[in-house]
Each structure stands twice: as C-alpha cells, then as structure tokens.
C-alpha cells in the first residue's frame, strides 16, 4: 500500500504516513504547541505588567524602592548582558544542529545553560543586597513579583536546556530531527525578551 495511506493512526510507524494524509506540512506540531504556549505566557506577563503600570499610575509619592532600599542598576545591566548573550549562544546552537553539527550544538547549549544559571545566581545575589522585602509597599510587591516570576521562567528554561543538553549528549538530535532544540530555543528567546522589557520598565521608565 502506498505510504500516503489514509489510515488514521496517531502513533508508531504510521506517524509519518498519517502526517502526510492529514496535511501536516509546514511547522511541526510541537512548535505550534510551543508558539501557542508562548502566546499564553505573553498574556500572563501582560497581566503582571498591567499590575505594575496600575500601581505606578496610581502612586502618590516618589515611585521607587522604599526608604533604606535601593535597586542596583549596574548589576542589572550585567545580568541583562548575560541573558542577551545567552540568546545568541542558543541561536548558534540551533544553527549548528540545522547544519547537522552535533558537536557545536552540545557546546553552545552548554554555554547557554551556564549563562542561564549565572543569571539566576546573579538575581538571587541581587535580592540579598537590595535592602527591602516584598512586603515593603507596592513598589516592592510588583518588583519582586515581576522579577521573581521572570526568574521562575528562566529556571523553567534552564530545565528545558538541561533536557536538550542531555539528549544532545546521547546523540538524539540530527539535522532533520531536532524539534526539541527549536522549541526550547523559542522559549529561551521569549524569556529573554520579557527580561529586556522588565529591565527597561523597572530601571529606566521610572
């Protein structure tokens, strides 16, 4: 029977055939899922940003950290540079596997993961030396909620990167077959973009 059979079976060796029969050309299903997930995440952060702007717009006094606290722009700038750099290294890894270069994929994914962990460590250090806590007024609340939830997303991305790295080390990716790398890279870029928005809003749009 032809490979383009109409048998509609969801898994196993018929997957490719079913994929053809169901017109699954174009973007792989996993990437569609990831893009939709990112769309929902955009709305999630949209909600959190809305709380920031609402608090900022309705705030009577001087907007900023409470008495005795400060925010650390130089450290935040360094962290921004680290995260933006990690987006580049991630993309180098994606381009490598698109050429079929699994060695470079491992290298760049490892570097990206390292930069991600460095960012998280830097953020935790930042939290310890700011001199104010989440319950010290509305600025503190939105500051820690937004940066904290972003940090949680970086952590989620780091888990994704760890899985990609482990699979790459076991030789599971090839030029044709590396949808997980593409999906994790999309997510990583998204997390990076959210941070850039956060950085500009919290540290510059005062």
């Amino acid at each position, binding site marked *: 029977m032809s490979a383009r059979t*109409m048998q*509609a079976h969801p898994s196993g060796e018929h997957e490719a055939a079913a994929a053809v029969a169901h017109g699954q050309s174009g973007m792989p299903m996993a990437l569609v*899922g990831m893009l939709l997930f990112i769309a929902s*995440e955009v709305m999630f952060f949209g*909600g*959190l940003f*809305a709380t920031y702007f609402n608090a900022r717009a309705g705030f009577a006094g001087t907007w900023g950290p409470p008495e005795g606290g400060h925010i650390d722009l130089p450290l935040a700038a360094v962290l921004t540079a680290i995260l933006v750099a990690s987006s580049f290294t991630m993309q180098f890894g994606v381009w490598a596997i698109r050429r079929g270069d699994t060695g470079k994929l491992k290298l760049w994914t490892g570097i990206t993961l390292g930069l991600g962990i460095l960012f998280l460590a830097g953020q935790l250090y930042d939290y310890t030396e700011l001199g104010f806590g989440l319950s010290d007024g509305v600025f503190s609340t939105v500051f820690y909620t937004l940066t904290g939830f972003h940090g949680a997303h970086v952590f989620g991305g780091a888990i994704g990167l760890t899985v990609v790295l482990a699979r790459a080390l076991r030789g599971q990716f090839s030029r044709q077959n590396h949808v997980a790398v593409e999906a994790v890279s999309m997510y990583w870029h998204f997390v990076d973009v959210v941070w850039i928005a956060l950085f500009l809003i919290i540290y510059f749009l005062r």
Partner: protein
Amino acid sequence: MATTTLEPRAGSYHRSWVLDWLTTVDHKKIGILYIVNSFLFFFAAGFLALLIRSELAVPGMQFLDQNTYNQAFTMHGTIMIFLFVVPVLAGFGNYIVPLQLGAPDMAFPRINALSFWLLPLGGLLIFSGYLFGGAAAEGWTGYAPLTSDRFAPGVGTDLWIIGLALVGTASIMGAINFIATIFKMRAPGMTLMRMPIFVWTILVTATLILLATPVLTAGLIALFIDRNYGGSFFDPAVGGNPILWQHIFWFFGHPEVYIVILPAMGVVSEILPVFSRKPLFGYKAFVFATVAIGLLSFSVWAHHMFTTGAVFLPFFSFMTALIAIPTGIKMFNWLGTLWRGKLILATPMLFSLGFLSMFLIGGISGVMLASPPIDFHVQDTYFVVAHLHYVFFGGSVFGVFAAAYYWFPKMTGRKLNEPLGKIHFWIHFIGFNLAFFPMHQLGLSGMPRRIGDYSPDAGWTILNMVSTVGAFMIAVSIIPFLINVVATLINGEPAGDNPWEGNTLEWATTSPPPPHNFDRLPPIHSERPLFFLTQGHGHAVERPEDLVEEEIVDEKPGDIERRPKDLV
C-alpha cells in the same frame, strides 16, 4: 504494507477497566471523563443552588447562617462556571472535534489527559475549603478587598485561589491542544471554510481561553501574594488598588462569558440544520460573526465596572452594544435555517429551540445592561442575576443538554428515550422560567444580589417563592434525564452510525467509533460531506489512494459548487 496491523496485538495484554480509564489518552474517553466529571460538579453546585433558593423562599434565615450562605453562593457560582459549563463543553469538544475534522485524535493526547486530570484536582481543592473552616465566601468574582487576609482570614480563599489557578492552567493546555488540532489535524479536503460550525466555535473559544485565562492566573497569583506574603497589589493603605482586581478579573471574565456561550452556539448550529433538514443559513456570516464576537470580547470588560467611576463609560457601553450585531446575525442564521424547514421536534431540537428563545431574552437584557443609566439603576441587583442565568443557564446549559441528547448515540451506540427526553425538556423549560424570570422584577424593585435574608415588607416574598419552586422543578427534571441515561446504557435502542441523518463527519464512523476513529473517510467537498454522500453525488472512498488523488485535484478552498460533478 503494515497498515493492516492497526492495533498491534490488541487484547494481548490485560488492563483492568479502571486502569484503562485512568490512563487513557484517547480523546473520546477523555471527552467522556470530562462530561461525567462536569456533571458530578453540576449536581454538587446544583445542590448549593437549592440551598440558596430554600433560604430565600421566605424572609428570615431558616437553613443557613449569613456566613454559610455566602459560602453557598460563592461555591455555586465558581463550580458552575469553572467546573461545569466550561469543562462540559470542552468535553463535547474533546469528543467531537477530532471526529468532525476526520482526525485520529487530538494533537497532544497526553497533554489532553493531563488537562483533564487537573480539573477534578482543582475542583476538589476549591471544595475542600469546607473541611478547613469554611470555603471561600466572597462571591465567584472574588472582589478586593473582600478577599484580603483581613476580611477573609480563612484558608478557604487560598484553596479557592489555588484550585482556580489549576483549573485555569488545565483549560489553557486544553486550548493549545484544540487550536493545534484544528490547524494541523484536518482530514484532506477539510479546509477552514468547510469546518463544521461547532469546530469554528471551539476554535474561537480556545483562542479566548488561551489569551484571557493567563491574565486571571496573574491576578490570582497577585491575590495569593497579597494574602500570604504581605504584598500590596490590592491594598490601598500601602499604594495598592482594589479596582485593579476588577480590571484583571473582568479582562478575563468577559471573554469567559463567550467561552461559555460560543460552544453552545456551535452545538445549536449543528442541531438546527439536521432537524430542519436544511443546511445552516449563512455559513460564512456565522463564521465571521463568531470571530467578531471573539475579537470584541476583549474590549468590553469594564461594562462590569460602570459604577466604579474608574472607567470611560461611552467607550465600553458602545463596544458592548456592538456585540449585539454579530449576535443578531447569528439569530438570523438560526431563524433562516428554521424557516420553511421540515422541523423534527426531537429532544435535541427542543433544547436547541429552548436555547434560541432563552438566549434571546438574556441577550436583550444584556443590551439593556450595556446602557450605563440602566446599569447604574440595577447594578448588583437580581436583574443582573436574571440576565446572567438566562445567558449561562438558558443559553449554555440548554446547549449542553441539546449536545448530550444529540451526541449520546454516537458516544454509546444507543439512542436516549424520546418520551423521557421530552418530559425532561418541558419540566426543565418551565422550571427554568419560573426560577429566573421573576428575578427580573425582583431586581427592578431593588432586591440586591448575594443577600440571605430580606424584609417581609419589601414585597419580594411571592416572587422569591415562585423562583424557589422553579429551582426545585429544574432539580426534578434531572431525574428523568438520569433514569434515561442509565436505562439507555443498560437496554437502549441501538442507534446505528447516523441516527439523526447528520451531515458532518462524526456520523460517518461507527457508534461508538473505533479507537482510531475512521476506517475510511468520505471525500470532503463542503461543510456537509455526508450530504453529498447520501444524496448520490459522491461515493465512499474504499481505497486510500482515491482520497489522496482527490486531495490533489481539490486544491481550491471554498469551491463547493463545481465539486459534485467532479466526483461522479
């Protein structure tokens, strides 16, 4: 080649019946799990509704105290909306959408199972407040500052927050699954403009869930931080803003209203043509109206907040009134479908006609409420309660029962008993109107919502008693439905593949369908592929090769007219 071993070694190992249902990733079984789970929560929340109506039947507090009354209406609203109406429609979507698309399953079957199993977990968490000193008691809208740790110190509100966040996450995952399925899993020939209307409504609904629910999640997290970690999002004493909660809640909450009604509109749009023996009048207009409602739904949230003084009334009033246009178009679609049709008044059709009439009343009171002068007068009165029940119950729940009677034969292979179904419908319909129509008058004469007691001198007693009688009639009407379901499962009339002579693809397979859904598919050249099949213009595709060839010829989407000739 290997296509003959479709179910490799089926039956070669044994799983218990229970384990099979607990671990299934088949969209049909998951759909049934959704529906059964939703009905269990429906009965729980319905029991709370009876408690509320019993308390309100006469002045004075007889059965509950003020606090338990607050918990009852909070749990009633939360559970009905988040754990009955939304998931039951998602359950029908789960079962029917892949079938209507000619697909073997949903795009992500395991995520599908996960998004179901989070529901009972979230629902039980919300209910478990009753075990820990009282459930949430601030209304299903959870307005700040009622939900602050100062006014609601109990753990019930925290459980409500966590449960809702879980249920919301589940529905976001479900929405991703629906959208991916609809865009990636359609059978050859099933272009977007040939999709059944039910699939279209599910697509728009899933998009609304995808974009609106995460905002509620953000709000719930903010509320949780306020309550547990000393945050001040909603606390004005330290620079927060309680109105912010209303913005966040209704930015989600108003799309939610369409999340609840659109699939029910889709169900009715499947049923009316079949039982009028006509195609749906104005398919494209209906599709565009559905998309228009979806788009508009993001620009009307503040009509819930007219009296806060914090929103620009003309804009939100105008946008809200605009929604009447696509909704009115749909009314004409439905009436045009009925017009000069050969109406068959079977139970699914009765519930669909019930939907049309009841939803019309809810729609009209909705347009009234869109006008700020009226809204200022009836804000937080029983007029709003009447309106929302005519839309949620008269609309969505009638749609749910229409869907249950319509697709039960497909799911079980047996047809529900018609006389019992008609008894159910008439008691239900009369009970519904007795319960909720008097609330319009109660609201206009000033009765506030969410009160457990009222003065005997207020003149509200008779109408409240009528409403309570109606609520118990609705409860009684469920009895013939349950008897019908059980008796049919035991010894029902076999349905055959296509008992209603429907024209969409779910009727092209056996009842119930095999695990892989279709052994073969008819050619798809319109939104009614089975019509061309049964009317002699088409032929069933016996050999898969045929279908692939036709797929190649059939590249022009929407070109329905020239198709039948090509086929013969």
